[in-house]
């Protein structure tokens, strides 16, 4: 209801403003309480999730026990592995058996295979392996000049080695048609390295 106030209207407006103060405080407190409640609820949720995550990451006691038992068993087995499984070592060696049987035929009908040497040639710098090659040296008596010239290339193609070189020739006084050759076969060694010893198995 409109009224006629003989005092300035500001006086009553200020009075109304003062009366609103408790309501404002009540609203402020309500919002503060809501904010705090929301914060506590969020913290509770985060804590619950952290706890859930930790619980999920922690291993099961039976699983942990079984894993320890397995490690112990593997440790015990490793100590005897070399002596208990020679076939493994044998299979890890380069497969040159087929080459040795084929070599006399590759060298020619009248050739004589005198000596065969094969080895791994590994160049290391510290614990790093810079190069690893399979090296095969054979000494054989071959007959004829043609064989002398074309034999290395012929052998390279037939054996699949990377390179085949003649590193020594020797004329045989007792048999002038023949010559003793020392041939060196090289090929990259594609065998796995032993990680424990840093060497080629």
């Amino acid at each position, binding site marked *: *209801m*409109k009224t*006629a106030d*003989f*005092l300035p209207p500001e*006086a009553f407006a200020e009075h109304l403003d*003062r*009366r609103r103060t*408790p309501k404002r405080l*009540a609203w402020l407190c309500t919002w503060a309480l809501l904010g705090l409640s929301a914060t506590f609820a969020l913290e509770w949720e985060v804590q619950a999730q952290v706890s859930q995550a930790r619980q999920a990451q922690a291993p099961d006691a039976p699983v942990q026990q079984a894993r320890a038992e397995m490690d112990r068993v593997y440790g015990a087995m490793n100590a005897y592995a070399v002596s208990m499984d020679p076939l493994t070592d044998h299979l890890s060696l380069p497969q040159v058996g087929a080459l040795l049987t084929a070599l006399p035929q590759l060298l020619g009908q009248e050739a004589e295979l005198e000596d065969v040497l094969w080895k791994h040639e590994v160049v290391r710098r510290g614990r790093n392996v810079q190069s690893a090659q399979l090296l095969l040296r054979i000494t054989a008596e071959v007959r004829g000049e043609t064989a002398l010239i074309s034999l290395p290339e012929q052998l390279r193609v037939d054996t699949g080695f990377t390179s085949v070189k003649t590193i020594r020739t020797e004329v045989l006084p007792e048999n002038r048609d023949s010559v003793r050759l020392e041939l060196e076969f090289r090929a990259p060694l594609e065998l796995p390295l032993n990680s424990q010893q840093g060497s080629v198995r």
Partner: protein
Amino acid sequence: MKLITRYSPVAIHFGSLESRLLQLAGGPGGWKVHAHASAGAQGSLRHASAVEHLLQALSHKKLRGKDALIATSGEASAVNLVPMDPAQRSRLQQTLQETAARAINDPEGISYRYLPLAGGAVDHAQREEFLLLTSGQSENRRCTEAAESMQLRAVGLEYSAFPTARALHAMHGPSEDPWGFLQLGMDRSLFGIVHEGEMRFLKPMQSNGQSLLQTVTAALPELPNEEAMQHPTVATLQQNAVGHAVEILHALRLESEGMAQEIRACLRHFSARHKGARLASVTLTGFGAALPEVENALDHALSIPTSVARPFSELGIQAPAEILAEEHLWCTPLGLALRGES
């Protein structure tokens, strides 16, 4: 348990016979009287005397520093209805100033406020009406100084009819029909009409509570003792009126008929300006309202439902017995206390 107890501003009504102080506690959901006191004091210097008595009565209440809303009534304030032709609209301020200056004579000067009374769409061809309220500066100063001497902060000073109408409006609630109120003060009566929550009409009446009191006193047998004869109270009059209703009604016939004629003239005027609107009821307040048989006499003369105001009972405000016994006298302080409440 309420976390925050709300208090209304301290309401002080400096009436022409008595000054009353009221403070409510609670809220719109449920008010109760927190502090109340009344002190009899008359004349232009009644404020200081009233304050002295009120302070004694309320020494145990913590009212210092509170906001106070004040109402005044009596000879130092006046209300006028000022009609204004559309052609004279440019002279509005001058007309109001001249009318206010004629209404009150105060050596310290006067202050006036005015309100347009039109409700709804204003017909520009029709004469406008303004309610002019004038108060002497000395009266305003005494009211505010009285509040300050009680260590209260005066934040409002109204003419008593407005807080009265506010309290009655709260009592009636939202109503489509207009309703009227008749404030029967000891030396001045006012008739007002409220429509759609706003004051639409207010006019001083010829008759007042004093003339009604004289009529009622004359109609009653002589009071038993000398003091009661010289200063009869409403309670003693009511006590003495038991069994004399017919005599009182007969005596009040002329008085109430004269008042009813005045009111009917006001209603015709109001009805003409508000598309034939009719009053739903008339509520009586002030000293004269509780005089024996006045309610019945006016009800009969007006042929409109007429009743004495009981705002505390109607609004369910918890109040002490002395307030409930004379609710019609506490309408103005109640209206002040409810100012600003939605």
